[in-house]
Each structure stands twice: as C-alpha cells, then as structure tokens.
C-alpha cells in the first residue's frame, strides 16, 4: 500500500534517509524503531509529502505520493503544529475544512475520552494535552494510512491506554498503521511488525509474533541486540 523505493534524503552533507526500500502492507500495525536521528521522521514526512526526496520514490498504491495521497494518509508529527490562535474546536474545524474523511462525531468521542474541551486554547495546553489533541484530531480521520510519530510522548501512563485503544480501533485489514516511538514497550502488543532503522538505513523488518516464537525475543530485546553495541 505504501512503498519506498531506494528513497534517499540528504540535508546538506548529512544523509537522513539512505536508500530505504520498504513496503508497508495493509492490515498491519508497524512499529518503526531506531535511535534519535535515525531517519524515521524524515521517512514519514516523505510519505506525507511534506519533504521531497533527494532521490528514489515514495509510492502510495503504486503512484508517487501527491495531493491525492494526502487525502488518504493521516500524518501526525511529533511537534505541535496547530496555529497559535486555534482552540480545540478550531483544530477540528480546520480538519473538517480540508479532509473529507474527518468525522466530528469521532472527534468529539475522542475529546471526551482524552478529557479535552472544545473551548480550550491550543496555546495554553500542557504538552500532554497537546499530544492527546494531536492524536484525537488525526484519528478522527477515516484514512487508509495513519502515521503517528511518537504518539506516546509526553502522555501519562493512564492516558497511554486510551491512545493504544484509539489506535487499535482504527486497525483493520484494509489499513496501515505506522507508529514510531521511543517507548518500545508501549507498542509490543499492538504492533505486529517492527521496522528497524539505523543511521538512515533499513536494518530489518520483523514479524513480532514469529520472532517471539522462533527466538523468544521481544521487540525490545531485538532493539537492544541491534542498537546495543552502537550506543554508548
């Protein structure tokens, strides 16, 4: 459904993504893993059409990502990005204005779940509330692909259960979910595939249950194996 072919992005002399060929198939929840600066965010932003690749291609259903793919790919960046003047309601109105697949009902339901009020100003939200708002508005879309960059960052333990539930509610056989997080253990049970990226290169893609059966290794175990010797 979403495929990168030898995709590369260089910022000046630094290569953020280095010839990554990766295909994400529908019906799976992918955990994208790698230390800071390994290229996860850049790969996602290329899939969202926010960053243009230096070379290689990013294909959505066989076509290079473009305006149409933005209609079907819901992307949530790590950083808050709403306009400073917006209230929680304005954020919903903005999505409703631009995305046909946005559901007010879904948005309201998630706001309740996350204990957010429509009248709250985004400028004054705590980082945890902002993180929840980003998820709520992104997941209120009925997209084909959801890419969530660090969905658990800044969110307390109890609310993480809500987020996991919200993510799982959207996982079905026709969709792709791609999550990146440093909180590897939060994704162990909800993801079924793991994508390991290191210094801009794709290391491997694993089926998590297979890995547990065959090697008795969790995603976190594998993470340690791959990156353990490279980090001090």
């Amino acid at each position, binding site marked *: 459904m979403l495929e990168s072919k030898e995709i590369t992005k260089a*910022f*000046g002399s630094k290569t953020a993504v280095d010839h990554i060929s990766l295909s994400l198939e529908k019906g799976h929840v992918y955990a994208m893993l790698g230390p800071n600066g390994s290229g996860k965010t850049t790969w996602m*932003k290329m899939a*969202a*059409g*926010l*960053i*243009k690749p230096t070379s290689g291609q990013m294909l959505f259903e066989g076509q290079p990502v473009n*305006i*149409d793919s*933005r*209609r079907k790919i819901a*992307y949530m*960046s790590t*950083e*808050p*990005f*709403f*306009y400073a*003047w917006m209230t929680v309601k304005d954020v919903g109105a*903005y999505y409703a*204005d*631009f*995305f046909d697949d946005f559901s007010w009902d879904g948005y309201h339901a998630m706001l309740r779940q996350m204990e957010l009020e429509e009248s709250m100003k985004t400028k004054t939200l705590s980082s945890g509330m902002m993180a929840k708002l980003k998820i709520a508005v992104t997941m209120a879309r009925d997209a084909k692909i959801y890419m969530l960059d660090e969905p658990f960052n800044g969110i307390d333990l109890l609310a993480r259960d809500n987020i996991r539930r919200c993510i799982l509610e959207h996982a079905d056989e026709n969709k792709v979910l791609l999550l990146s997080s440093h909180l590897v253990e939060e994704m162990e049970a909800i993801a079924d595939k793991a994508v390991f990226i290191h210094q801009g290169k794709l290391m491997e893609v694993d089926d998590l249950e297979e890995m547990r059966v065959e090697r008795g290794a969790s995603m976190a175990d594998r993470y340690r194996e791959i990156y353990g010797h490279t980090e001090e």
Partner: protein
Amino acid sequence: MLKLMKYEFRKTWFTKLILLGITAVAEIAFLIGLYLEKETTLGLSVLLLVFLALGGVLVIGLESVVTLHRDLNTKQGYMLFMTPNTSYSVLGAKVLECSLSILIGGAFYFALGSLDLTLLFAKSGELNRLWEIIQDFLSRMTFANRALIIDMEGMASFVFCLLAGWILTVITAYFAVVISAALLNGKRFNGLLSFVLFLALSWFIGWVARIATASIPSINVLLLVDGAISLAFTAVMYVITAIIMERKLSV
C-alpha cells in the same frame, strides 16, 4: 481555495483590525478638529491618516511575507502542507488574499481620503492654511518625472498604480522567501542571497516597466499601464514561485 483564503485571512486579521481601529480614532480626531476648529488636532490627525494610508497597505503586505516565511520555515507549515492542496492553491490563496487586502485597504483609504478632502474643502474658508499645504503637496507629486493630474481620475489611477506595484513587490518577496526555503535552505548566506535576488528582480521589473511605458503621452494611461504591468508580473512571479514550491519545497 476559498477555505485556504479564509485561513490566510484568519492568520492576519488581527493586524488589520488594529489598523482599522487606529484609523477610526484618527478619523474621529479629524472630524473633531474640523468641526470644533482645533487646528492642532486637525493637523495631527491629517498627518496620522496620511501615515496610516501609506503604512497600512505596507504593513498588510509585510505581514503576509512574514506569514509565508513562517509557513515555510516553522512547524506551523505542516498545517498548511499536510492538507490536500497543491502549491498552486496554497500560494494562490496567499497571493489572492494579500492582493485583495491591499486593494481593498487601498480603496478604503482612498475613499476616506477623498471624503476627508471634500469635507476639508467645504470648510476651506476657515482653514485656508492647511488646505493650501495639501494642495501644494498634491501639486508637487510626480510619477516617472511627470506631474500628476489632481482630480478623482488622476488620483485613482495613481493609487491603483501604487497598489499594483506594492502587490508585485510583495509577490517578489514571496518568490525570494520560497527560493530561500526551497533551494538555498541550509546554505551559507541564504538570507543575504535571497534578499539580493529580491532587489535585483525588483530593479529589473521596474526597468522593464519604465521602458515599456516611456512613450505613453498621457500620465493617467501611463499609470494604468504601469499598474497592469505590475499585475502581469505578479501573475508570472506567482506561477514561477508555485512551480518551485511544487517541485522542490520541503517543510
């Protein structure tokens, strides 16, 4: 497109509101000065109104350039570029919103100025000195070394020419900002280079317009043609800028 324009307006409406507020205060001061015959109040308010008329459209244009810069270089840009809109629509909405604001703002100040001058003229018997100063000022105004015709038509042509020129300047600044973000990003002297590019382009377009209009005998026609040339260049700059955004821009 309308939705994009709505949000472009939403980003800048506060400044416009403030401008409107100050203008209202100045206008009230003007009317008080005029009818209660307080010369100092009147003089100051006229000065302030002239300043607002010139500065208002300037501020509107500058703010739109700053907004574009922010949309291209901060996280806020995701908001715009994650939406299913091409660079042509995104930039088009900005150009249209800004142009309309400048034109409407300009027309508003022109209308207000005409009204105030008419009121002033009606009372010119008592306020001779100020009226003379204004007339003297108007008669000294020139464009391309030619005297302007001081009537409604002449002034309207002049204002149109100025506004169109300012719109072109703003779009040229857009172009420089986009070049800076899309092509020079991360390079040394990025800001300086794009500023030099902006100056060079502005100079070049001005030169073309001067040559194209040099042989037009009527000053009013010259003003209109010059304005039209500005708008034509605006359209060209818009297309080039949008193409660069579409192909090269990463936010």
